[in-house]
């Protein structure tokens, strides 16, 4: 088990022409990561392989987003999300993550494939604000189901105000 890094204000930025590629099994255990992933996360390939993807989870991220993410991909859907990730040295990097399920020849779900690209700074700004509010809602409601519910409600409220689906919203940023 790895010790969770202490977050710092140091930001790493993904290259304009690069993307992070990673694969996990059904439980979210990393089974592959490309060189960009290795480089930006600061972990070596042997460190990444076999570790849960959540080692990259930054404390600034609301849990409701990960719930939405897992709910969607477990239902064999595609999800796109702006995610603030935590590198091994405590620095952070923003990505626009696209996660799709992988199937075998018989159509059985065998894992997940994630491509993460450099997000537009304006989109990051909007999402960071929304995430802060969601995180605050989670904190106020007390961590647990209540917090998740409050935070999710806030997300739905934001979408309702804009009269957009979640997908429409993230692709419109």
């Amino acid at each position, binding site marked *: 088990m790895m010790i969770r890094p202490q977050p710092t204000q140091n930001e790493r930025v993904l290259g*304009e*022409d*690069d*993307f992070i*590629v990673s*694969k996990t099994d059904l439980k979210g255990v990393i*089974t*592959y990561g*490309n*060189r960009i992933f290795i480089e930006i996360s600061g972990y070596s*390939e*042997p460190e990444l*392989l076999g570790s849960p993807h959540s080692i990259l989870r930054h404390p600034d991220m609301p849990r409701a987003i990960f719930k939405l993410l897992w709910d969607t991909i477990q239902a064999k859907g*595609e999800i796109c999300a702006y995610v603030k990730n935590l590198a091994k040295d405590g620095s952070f990097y923003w990505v626009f993550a*696209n996660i*799709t399920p*992988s199937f075998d020849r018989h159509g059985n779900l*065998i894992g997940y*494939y994630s*491509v993460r*690209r*450099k997000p537009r700074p304006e989109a990051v700004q909007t999402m960071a604000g929304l995430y802060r509010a969601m995180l605050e809602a989670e904190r106020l409601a007390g961590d647990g189901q209540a917090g998740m519910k409050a935070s999710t409600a806030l997300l739905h409220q934001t979408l309702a105000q804009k009269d957009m689906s979640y*997908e*429409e919203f993230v*692709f*419109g940023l």
Partner: protein
Amino acid sequence: MKNLSLGSKVRYLQGAALGLFLIFGYLVSGPEKPSTLAWALFGLTTLVLILLLYTVHRILVGIKNLTATIRKAANGDLDQRITRIKRGAATGGAAWAVNDLLDQQEAFFREVFSAFEHASQGKTFRLAMDQGLHGAFKDAMTRVNVSVESLGKVQQMAIKEKLIARITNLNSGNLIGNLQSIQEYLMNMTQELGIVGQISKETAQEAEASRATIESLVADLNRMAEMIARTNAQTALLHQKGEEINQVVQVITDVADRTNLLALNAAIEAAHAGEAGKGFAVVAEEVRTLSENTKDAAASIAATIESFGEATSRMIGDSEQVKEIAEGSRSAVIDFRAQVLKFADSAETSLAQVSKAQDFSFASLVKVDHFLYKQNGYRVLHQGANSPEARAVQTTHLTCRLGVWYHEGQGAESFSHTASFDRLEAPHASVHQNVQEAVSLLGTHWDRDEAIQEQIFGRFEAAEQASEEVVQVIDRMVEERHRRA
């Protein structure tokens, strides 16, 4: 040593092994017994050779992995990656290059799939992301997005059209039902108006007959009044003649009285004359008897004339009353005649109105028939060429309600004199012909052929125009018939 490339590593090892081998060969091939140094060198050479063999083995394993991954990828399995690549491994660079290629390919395919999947649901906001893709992959994605965008738009339109088509279908289905209920209603109304028309006609005929009866009654009464007046005059005359007869009877009575006196005097004179006057006394007696008889007859006549006079007086009184009654009847009958005339007039008017209403009602009915006919044609678009609707449009312009009416029914009877009557046949035939042609085209592969679609649309358009004309001609026919009347 660790970061050296595969080629250099092998070359260094080869050089070292070869050099050591030469030294070792020199030492062991000499006349002396091989020294410890020579043995040591031999050992080192062997070690280097083993290392060389191990390296070659690792390279072979790496190449095998690479080959397996590339082969799988060639078979379409892009999920594979080479992992646990040792830093500095001879095939490491190649392995990462293969991974990168597969990452590019897999990201490309998944993006294309996602974008098309969304576009097929009309979600145009989800374009394929080309960020991170390189070279041909990136260029291809730009072109893919052009297709994705147009598919998205088409899908959005298709989704929109789907609702429009469904609602149109729903509407036309209900429209037929609605028109059928109006048709039924108009059919009943036309029938009812036919009965009312028949009754009005009979009423008008009866009113006419009553008028004739009244006229003859009035004439009879007039004649009667005249006759009464004439009878009155005759009676008065009769009465007057009776008076005159009375005076004559009086004269006769006087003559008889005086004759009697004269006969009495003659008898006295005859008695004076004696035997000679005996004959004369007989004559005088006869004369006296005659005068007595004359006086009796005159009295009897006077009595008769008296009662005659009373009867004529009563008759005059009665006929005066009869005259009054006849006069009263006559004026009552004249009043009655005025009423009957008015009644006959309104019967005539209501007959005209009913006939007009009946024509309007029938005109509406045949209009609705044709709307229904067209609707059935349109329904074939949704219901198919073997539907009841397709069979319903097979009626021709000779066998449909309007056709029968026009050619053999009441239409020919009541409307053939109107100027517009002859103008109905052509547009009416055209409605049926065009709808039937459109429906027969709907039995072909029209859904795949725009040229056929164009033809179908043209037929329906022509049917609509013809139908419009049919409606106008029917309106004019009705108007012309009732303007004359």
